[in-house]
């Protein structure tokens, strides 16, 4: 067994199924916690507590603790919602769309990207519920034969939204869990303590690697990928329709579905990079999540970023081409009004700075990609804010105009949701394999992965 040990591997040696399994499973089963992990965990827990406090206070007092007003009834909660759902999209894109396109390099990044999707959509799902005013009645959106004899209004995109988001999170969880089943069986077989054997064993559902089971598993996995791909496009399309069905200048536009889906992928690739760079370093996974993987995600970020830039341009063009004075006023207000710094920060973060990705050297530099990822995430959050809030502050009648300023509780909810997302992700890294062992075993057999560090 000495040859299969992960302790010292000579450079250039080829990874076998055994070494891959040991290396990834040991992160969960054996390896002591890294100080960086402990620090991140402490920070994430602190911010999760803040989220809990913010939500408790909201439930006690109502949405008045936020900066919302008339006409800005949709502010931080909806901005956070759109931003978080968007972040999830890249995970599904990586795991489902790239699977259908037979992009083999996706194998070592799909698992954590799917986890990112689930946690991001969980944060997203929280926001509209918190914003409802009477959040305990959120289930009224679901069609069920109630004693009031009332049914949902099917002509409202807000009702479509609950179908889209609920479907998205359920399908994402099933897809993720299904991929995990064989890996949970591996953890069950490798765990040394009885407690872990039973826990992983129960979640592995008795998976034993039967060839017929594998055959059905692969078919099912491929079908789910085929279903998830159009689903992910539909989700942010429906989210965008929440806005474009409204008559507010800056919302009422046919460009919204592709504009939103593309921005979603953009922010999602940024988040994937922000998570992947520290993860591969702390857990020493550089041989599996290589600079090539990071560079490809960087390229995808550049492409989606260019499409986002194009959308900004088209919005301005459409306003002037339409000749509609309210549309033109909206653009002037956006780029020269009281919230102009937001719009120019969006241009800086989403259009100008990411052009650095044209450099091949920079695309292979994990630190630079990490920083660019953060810049794009900030830019995309501000973009959602610009579209939702800035458009609402000034609509048709100047007498109805009103600015929006966030309160402490707005900021606490946003920061807390980031903390809770990070906490969930860190727990995932601790208890589940961050890379699909079964897929990587197969991949390594077809295309050798060599030891470089």
């Amino acid at each position, binding site marked *: 067994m000495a040859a299969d040990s992960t302790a010292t591997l000579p450079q250039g040696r080829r990874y076998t199924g055994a070494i891959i399994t040991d290396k990834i499973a040991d992160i969960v089963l054996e390896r002591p916690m890294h100080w960086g992990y402990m620090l991140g965990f402490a920070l994430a827990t602190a911010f999760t507590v803040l989220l809990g406090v913010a939500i408790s206070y909201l439930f006690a007092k109502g949405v008045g603790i936020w900066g919302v007003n008339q006409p800005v009834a949709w502010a931080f909660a909806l901005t956070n919602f759109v931003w978080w759902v968007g972040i999830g999209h890249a995970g599904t894109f990586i795991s489902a769309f790239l699977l259908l396109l037979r992009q083999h390099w996706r194998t070592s990044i799909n698992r954590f990207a799917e986890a990112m999707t689930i946690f991001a959509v969980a944060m997203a799902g929280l926001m509209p519920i918190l914003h409802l005013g009477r959040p305990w009645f959120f289930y009224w959106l679901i069609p069920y034969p109630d004693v009031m004899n009332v049914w949902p209004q099917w002509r409202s995109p807000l009702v479509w939204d609950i179908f889209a988001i609920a479907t998205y999170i359920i399908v994402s969880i099933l897809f993720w869990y299904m991929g995990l089943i064989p890996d949970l069986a591996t953890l069950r077989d490798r765990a040394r303590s009885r407690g872990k054997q039973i826990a992983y064993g129960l979640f592995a559902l008795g998976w034993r*690697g039967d060839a017929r089971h594998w*055959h059905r598993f692969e078919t099912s996995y491929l079908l789910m990928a085929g279903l998830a791909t159009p689903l992910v496009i539909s989700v942010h399309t429906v989210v965008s329709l929440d806005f474009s069905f409204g008559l507010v200048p800056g919302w009422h536009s046919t460009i919204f579905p592709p504009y939103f889906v593309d921005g979603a992928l953009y922010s999602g690739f940024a988040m994937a990079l922000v998570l992947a760079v520290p993860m591969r370093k702390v857990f020493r996974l550089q041989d599996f999540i290589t600079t090539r993987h990071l560079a490809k995600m960087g390229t995808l970020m550049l492409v989606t970023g260019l499409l986002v830039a194009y959308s900004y341009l088209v919005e301005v063009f459409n306003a002037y081409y339409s000749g509609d004075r309210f549309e033109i006023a909206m653009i002037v207000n956006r780029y020269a009004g009281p919230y102009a710094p937001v719009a120019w920060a969006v241009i800086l973060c989403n259009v100008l700075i990411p052009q650095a990705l044209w450099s091949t050297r920079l695309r292979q530099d994990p630190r630079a990609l990490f920083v660019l990822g953060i810049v794009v995430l900030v830019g995309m959050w501000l973009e959602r804010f610009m579209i939702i809030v800035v458009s609402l502050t000034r609509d048709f009648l100047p007498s109805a105009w009103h600015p929006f300023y966030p309160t402490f509780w707005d900021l606490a909810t946003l920061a807390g949701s980031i903390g809770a997302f990070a906490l969930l992700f860190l727990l995932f890294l601790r208890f589940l394999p961050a890379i699909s062992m079964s897929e990587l075993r197969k991949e390594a057999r077809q295309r050798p992965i060599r030891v470089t560090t």
Partner: protein
Amino acid sequence: MSRHESLYALLAEFAEPTALVRAAHASRKTYRNVDAYAPYAVDGLAEALGFRRNRVPLVTLVGGILGGVGIYALQWYTAVIDYPINSGGRPLDSWPVFIPPTFEVTVLVAAVAAFFGMLALNGLPRLHHPIFNAREFDLASRNRFFLCIRASDPAFDAERTRTFLASLAPLRVIEVPA
């Protein structure tokens, strides 16, 4: 079964997936109750065991159709019959706006059917299986490939089957107690 009450099966362990596929082909000439176990989906292995009818796509299709038709019918019934609302003078049966939920629920039920259909057809979840009685079977989820001939096979004979498995050049032949 009667002759081999203490034995569930004989296992041959291989280091290579190609060796397992070859062995599976060879075993099918004599035996019917043959299983193969691998740490990942080996292409062609299920076919080598005579696996033909994969019903997962059918289950998924049926799920999708039921979901789509069901939610469309619900929308039509509630909007036209049970709870008609005049929304800006639009027709009650405004089918284009029924499409987004129809699409979402089609995907939802199809995916749920694909997942649970796969599990059900595989006979999972299952708390225990006799194959786990073999201590060495732990490696099936790591790096080893196993061919399993069950004692319930009409052609099974502890000695002859062991000789046959040994002739396939495995790493070792393992007895799985019942």
